[in-house]
């Protein structure tokens, strides 16, 4: 089982993500440079958070054309597991590996704090270690996390169970107050129709040890390991 963490110019959660896989999950992991195009040795690829290419033009808009992204599309086509976190989620949307887009937070502020996430179901490779309806406490850190898609896409996401995590209050209720950025239907994380490419704005790697204030991110990260063991 081999994990890869992509590094773009401007990625800044690459080391945290690498650390979470190596030292918390205790799984083999390697960095992948944005110019690399051979991903055959990997089973799961993590697209980390940060500000790739300075977020110029739009978040993820330039990173999406890096050489590694063509290879990542092939990796996803072959059924490989891909998880984009924060900027990684934005990049996967720009690359059309996930539907929709992430726009400016409705309050226009960069928000960096813990939020509550409701696990919508545990049938995916990204939440199989969670209970359905479980509330996870995981931090967000973004200025553009406001998920948007057209009504037809939203209906499809709902019908197919492609919504993985939604912003909620401590009891798991989906309120407007618990929605930090104005995301449509409180969406915090989604998966593609095939079930092997997911993106989420909250940072599970920043909630992977008790010293960080929460270990709930482990539920997401360990789900990847369980999915790969079963595969």
């Amino acid at each position: 089982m081999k994990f890869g963490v992509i590094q773009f110019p401007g990625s800044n959660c690459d080391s945290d993500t690498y650390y979470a896989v190596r030292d918390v999950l205790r799984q083999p992991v390697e960095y992948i440079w944005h110019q690399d195009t051979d991903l055959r040795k990997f089973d799961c690829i993590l697209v980390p958070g940060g500000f790739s290419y300075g977020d110029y033009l739009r978040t993820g808009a330039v990173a999406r054309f890096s050489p590694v992204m063509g290879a990542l599309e092939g990796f996803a086509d072959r059924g490989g597991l891909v998880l984009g976190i924060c900027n990684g989620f934005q990049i996967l949307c720009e690359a059309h590996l996930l539907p929709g887009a992430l726009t400016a937070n409705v309050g226009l502020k960069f928000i960096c704090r813990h939020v509550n996430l409701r696990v919508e179901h545990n049938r995916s490779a990204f939440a199989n270690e969670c209970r359905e309806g479980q509330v996870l406490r995981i931090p967000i850190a973004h200025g553009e996390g406001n998920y948007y898609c057209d009504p037809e896409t939203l209906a499809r996401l709902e019908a197919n169970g492609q919504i993985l995590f939604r912003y909620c209050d401590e009891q798991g209720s989906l309120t407007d107050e618990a929605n930090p950025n104005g995301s449509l239907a409180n969406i915090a994380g989604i998966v593609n129709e095939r079930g092997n490419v997911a993106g989420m704005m909250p940072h599970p790697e920043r909630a992977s040890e008790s010293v960080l204030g929460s270990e709930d991110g482990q539920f997401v990260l360990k789900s990847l390991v369980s999915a790969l063991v079963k595969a």
Partner: protein
Amino acid sequence: MAKVKVYVTLKPTLLDAQGRVVQNALNNLGYEEVDGVRMGKYIEIELKDNGHSVQERVDEMCRKLLANPVIENYRFEVSD
């Protein structure tokens, strides 16, 4: 040599949070008639003549990179 002005705006169905803040600021300054503000991006491009159709090439640039068709509309003007 052609010069192109590209305008990228959020689709009307999306809330333009920046535009709303600017509208409130204008209203607060006494411009009560301001009933809506939408903000966008303005991009200037200079093109060398290489035989390609400027219209087609710039349209492609907009669709590929300059605008995200999921959330944005674009239009452009070409001048020599």
